[in-house]
């Protein structure tokens, strides 16, 4: 038994993957042993997803090898895009992943197995195994997804790959997951943990691997890294001081006031915070939809929207970068109902420079860009219009650090020119940069913080308070 325990679960030797001219992975050698919790970090486009797909067998390497010395069973992946069937129940979804549940009475077995796994990872979860997925909240769906990844399913999970698993979870539930991962690895399982939340990576990883441009640039025990060193290795200038307090303009008159108490002044950057799924995104959507009409588009929009879920809310996939940018200003620049093509070319080219979209040609399809650059296009679309209010639905989710810094600077500059921003973010760091923060709890505003009062402690306090009492 001892010999098998030492053998790595998966070993990559000079594995590379090319998609035509694109070298997504350029010769990676890596081993994951039982008991390893590998933190995998890197900016967008560094090759993390490709590496995961090589390990879980979605495709094979173009060169090099991917070996599983003790068998390929028990390798599970939990992805960022949820892969549940929304029309089936929780237990039925387990059946899809576990063909072994056969015969009469499979439902009972499925219910028991998923219930037990959920209880083990997220005590007190309150999820009914017979509930249909599309009636669960996004956090609950993520929890089910994770549980299916760790469930025995007729065997044993030997290596679980978690790709941004806490992106839809709030702090308490995320902590339960991290605790479970630590326990799982201590008992001999292996985990590959991909996250842009460096705090979590440090909390859970025994080893950290840094990917950059398809290659491994660092592979050391976690204790040998510092935060700055990690950011450095990923290839961007680390900015420890996140909030740029300088040049905060004095805001003007009130431009937004909603019945639920959201308020914003001209030139202010207003943040929405609190535990994920407590009504912030819905409040923003309500606000935007109320300010705009689906029947009329006047010459000047009153508000613009920057989506966080690019695929669902933002990107127009068949179009070029140019058309994706100009869609919001077509009416304004139109001449007798026809599109002003010179104007839209000018605007797109202008914003490519200002916001730094990495492409040679704005008439390329938008899907040719990396995720972070697509996000920049969505920002350009919003900022190109004259709308005085910019509503942002967690637009930095899953975006690399470099892009983030560029956009923060842009937001500050635009605010200084009198634009108002309403910014829902699930990262406390970002929220702390705002001039004013509304903390949401259970669909309502529980606290309004301004200036120096915006601290992580006060935000957490306002998010959690009632829950501890009950």
């Amino acid at each position, binding site marked *: 038994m001892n010999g098998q325990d030492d053998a790595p679960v998966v070993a990559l030797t000079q594995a590379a993957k090319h998609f035509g001219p694109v070298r997504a992975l350029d010769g990676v050698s890596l081993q994951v042993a039982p008991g390893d919790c590998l933190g995998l970090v890197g900016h967008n486009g560094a090759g993390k997803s490709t590496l995961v797909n090589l390990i879980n067998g979605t495709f094979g390497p173009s060169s090099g090898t991917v070996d599983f010395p003790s068998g390929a069973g028990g390798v599970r992946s939990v992805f960022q895009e949820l892969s549940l069937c929304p029309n089936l129940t929780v237990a039925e979804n387990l059946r899809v992943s576990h063909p072994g549940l056969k015969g009469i009475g499979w439902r009972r077995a499925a219910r028991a197995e998923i219930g037990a796994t959920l209880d083990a990872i997220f005590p007190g979860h309150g999820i009914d195994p017979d509930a249909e997925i599309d009636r669960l909240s996004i956090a609950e769906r993520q929890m089910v997804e994770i549980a299916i990844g760790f469930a025995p399913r007729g065997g044993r999970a030997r290596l679980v790959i978690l790709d941004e698993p806490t992106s839809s979870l709030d702090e308490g539930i995320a902590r339960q997951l991290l605790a479970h991962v630590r326990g799982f690895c201590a008992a001999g399982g292996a985990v590959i943990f991909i996250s842009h939340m460096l705090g979590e990576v440090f909390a859970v990883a025994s080893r950290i691997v840094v990917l950059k441009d398809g290659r491994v640039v660092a592979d050391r025990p976690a204790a040998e890294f510092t935060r700055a060193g990690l950011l450095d290795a990923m290839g961007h200038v680390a900015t420890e001081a996140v909030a740029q307090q300088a040049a905060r303009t004095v805001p003007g008159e009130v431009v937004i006031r909603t019945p639920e108490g959201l308020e914003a002044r001209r030139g202010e950057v207003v943040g929405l915070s609190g535990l994920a799924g407590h009504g912030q995104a819905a409040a923003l959507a309500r606000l935007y939809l109320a300010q705009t009409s*689906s029947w009329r588009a006047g010459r000047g929009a009153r508000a613009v929207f920057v989506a966080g879920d690019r695929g669902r809310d*933002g*990107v127009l*996939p*068949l179009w070029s970068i140019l058309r994706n940018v100009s*869609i919001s200003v077509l009416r304004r620049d*139109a001449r007798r*109902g026809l*599109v002003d093509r010179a104007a839209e070319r000018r605007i797109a080219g202008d914003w490519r420079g200002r916001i730094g979209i990495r492409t040679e040609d704005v008439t390329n399809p938008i899907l040719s860009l990396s995720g972070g650059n697509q996000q920049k296009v969505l920002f350009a679309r919003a900022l190109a219009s004259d709308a005085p209010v910019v509503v942002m639905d967690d637009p930095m989710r899953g975006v690399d650090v470099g892009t983030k810094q560029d956009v923060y600077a842009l937001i500050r500059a635009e605010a200084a020119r009198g634009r108002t921003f309403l910014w829902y973010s699930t990262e406390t760091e970002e929220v702390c940069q705002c001039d004013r923060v509304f903390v949401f709890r259970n669909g309502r505003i529980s606290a309004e913080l301004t200036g120096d009062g915006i601290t992580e402690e006060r935000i957490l306090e306002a998010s959690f308070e009632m829950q501890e009492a009950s």
Partner: protein
Amino acid sequence: MSGLAKPWLWAWLAAALAFGATLALTSGRGAGELAYAAMSFGAFAAIVGLGQMLVITLGPGNVDLSIPATMTLAGTLALKVMGGEPGTAWIGLAVALAAGLGVGAANFALIWLLRLPPIIATLAASLVYQSLAIWSNRGLRIKPPPGLADFATGRVLGVPNVAWVALALAAATWLMLERSVWGRWLLASGQNLRAARLAGVPVQAVRAATYLAVAVFAGLAGYLLASFSGGAALNMGTEYLLMSIAVVVIGGSSIAGGNSNVPGVLGAALFMFLVVSMLNSYGAGAGLRNVLTGAIIIAIVIAASARRSRQ
């Protein structure tokens, strides 16, 4: 996209092939008549096909199943109002277009107010329109006014008048889609309705206009077809339902929405007529004709899909 890769080219190529195959039988005689017939009958398919294309561009799930009933209703009402009297052609046209507007508004009301999926809304509504047509017709076969009948069956520069109408409509539709703000809005809504709304596109107005447009196009087609055929039969629209969808897809528009192809619709309309007449010339009975028509439609879709996946 290079020239040969353009999807609409294939529809025109296929039409040319069918044309050639038919003429091969007669050693080239009758080319003029065949072309004329193809343009005449193809014009009606093209007109309804253009409308259906706009609806299909709106995105998956958007299709108008009430086109045949609309054609019948518009044709019946127009002919009834004109009563065969000379000089009433414009009044008849107005009635047909107004019928189209009414149908389009009713369809969209069902879709928007009652949240019915368009397939079901237009299907259910078409039954009502069919009944309306039956009731207003009362079995009488009213002829179109002589001037109008002459126009519908006449020609200018060797091209049938109805084909000129279809061509003009196609040009206007193309211009709208390629160059106008409304066209961009329609294409955006078809790619991702929610994203378009969040980007400031007035999506409900776009949807409403599209469903109005397809019904108006169908009304126009019904008006012209009734004048062409010498009367409005109650089943005049039956074959145009499947035809309208077929010419959109064969012409290269994406069934998933957000991508339309006007020249393709024209080529496909010609092709649909030519392939049937080709089979007729080769002596195929009704059974064989149907089987081969179906097989050809499927073969073209497979070819179009294979090409698309290579891009």
